């Protein structure tokens, strides 16, 4: 009986890992030294780097284009205060430069990203890891940019025709 339970637990662990792998959100787990501990399939597919290539490597060495001082600053409240932190695409369009998810019909060259940094508490109650979640918000960003462009054109037209009260 006990063996069966163990098997069930193993099966559950298996599909939990599967889910973590296949969810269409980038998941990266970093320790306090910014060594990569988890790198899911989303990250693998978009970066072209296998988990085995990034595991236990330093994030800033692998991705020198990431502004180190800036990101460390964002992570301070996460590690020190157990606080979630959010970065919007309006601050920085992306953390990792990934190509557009829709290479044919997409209008933007790269993937705009929203990022959530969430503290992970260890068995001792201390925050020793952090989960970085990467969301693709390219469509949101493209739509907003388009809306702003339309607004500018509209204002120019209004100025030209003198219909300021429109």
């Amino acid at each position, binding site marked *: 009986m006990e063996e069966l339970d163990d098997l069930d637990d193993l099966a559950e662990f298996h599909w939990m890992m599967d889910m973590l792998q296949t969810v269409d959100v980038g998941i990266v787990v970093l320790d306090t030294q910014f060594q990569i501990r988890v790198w899911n399939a989303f990250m693998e597919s978009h970066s072209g780097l296998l988990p085995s290539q990034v595991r236990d490597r330093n994030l800033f060495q692998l991705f020198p284009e990431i502004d180190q001082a800036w990101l460390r600053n964002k992570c*301070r*409240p996460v590690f*020190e*205060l157990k*606080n*979630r932190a959010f*970065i919007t695409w*309006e*601050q920085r369009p992306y953390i990792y430069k990934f190509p557009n998810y829709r290479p044919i019909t997409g209008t933007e060259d790269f993937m705009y990203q929203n990022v959530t940094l969430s503290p992970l508490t260890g068995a001792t109650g201390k925050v020793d890891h952090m989960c970085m979640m990467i969301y693709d918000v390219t469509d949101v960003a493209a739509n907003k940019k388009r809306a702003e462009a339309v607004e500018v054109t509209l204002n120019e037209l209004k100025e030209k025709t003198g219909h300021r009260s429109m």
Partner: protein
Amino acid sequence: MFSVLICDDSMVARKQAAKCLPDDWEVQIHFAKHGGEAIDALKEGKGQLLLLDLNMPIMDGYETLENIIKEGIDTKVVVVSGDIQPEAHERVKALGALDFIEKPVSKPVLKKILLANGVLEEVKEEVKNEPAVDALDPDVRDCYQEITNIAMGQAGDHLARILNVFVRLPIPNVNLIEVSELHMMLQDIELKDSVSGICQGFVGPGISGEALFILSDSSFGDVARIMGINGQVDDQVQLELLMDAANILIGTCLNGLASQLDLYFSQGHPVVLGQHRSISELISSNKLRWKRTLAIELSYGLEGYNVHCDLVLLLTEESMKAMNYKLSHLLED
């Protein structure tokens, strides 16, 4: 027409005070965000009655009272403050204030004080006891105020540790407001283009709401200095600072509330209000869904700096059921 000047750095408090003026009293209402603005308005004759807060940036209530005496301005002052220390009471009376009202101000109390000091004349025998339909149960309000106080203490401590500054802790303002008032409150932000705002949705079991973080644009210079940013503080830097401050304040405040309510809040991704979409648009899309909302407002200041920000937690009316249940141990006698 009789003119009333309401001076408070918190916009919810200003609206609240305006709402509590007697219904049948025809007055012209003016607003000031701090003592400096109040003195200017008084000199222009905009304030036969002044409702004055004590803790404000730039010029606080005490200095305002001193200036009124020094400049010989003719006005009747009633202090409305969350500072419940007896000395505060004594000090403002010594400085010429007619009376003292503890925050949050309520309609019956304000009316009683205005009558007692001869500011308002009794109109007929209108003594009908209005049932306080939209008022929050005082015990519930007290309870919300207390848990927010504790959460804010933690948030303030966190902010102080990260920024290395002393944080003046606010007294939370807890009110049930109608959607129309939320509209007013947010339009207030829209009219003054000198603030920037972030809003973020949060949800826990049976509880849902939004956190609204508003930073006055004049604060950015000092915030940049505190954060150790050199060089020009352009729009991009301002957005970074706004997000950083919002992350810390909203996050720690929600964490503090969640731990006291013994639950977990999921936080949505923050949305930049000022740049993202117009505030009237934001409200119009929410208009139909919300009737009343529980608003918890916190005004923060940093000692020695010209930094002022407002954190408003808006909770749906339904959330109160779940919150009261979770807090039943505090609400029982």
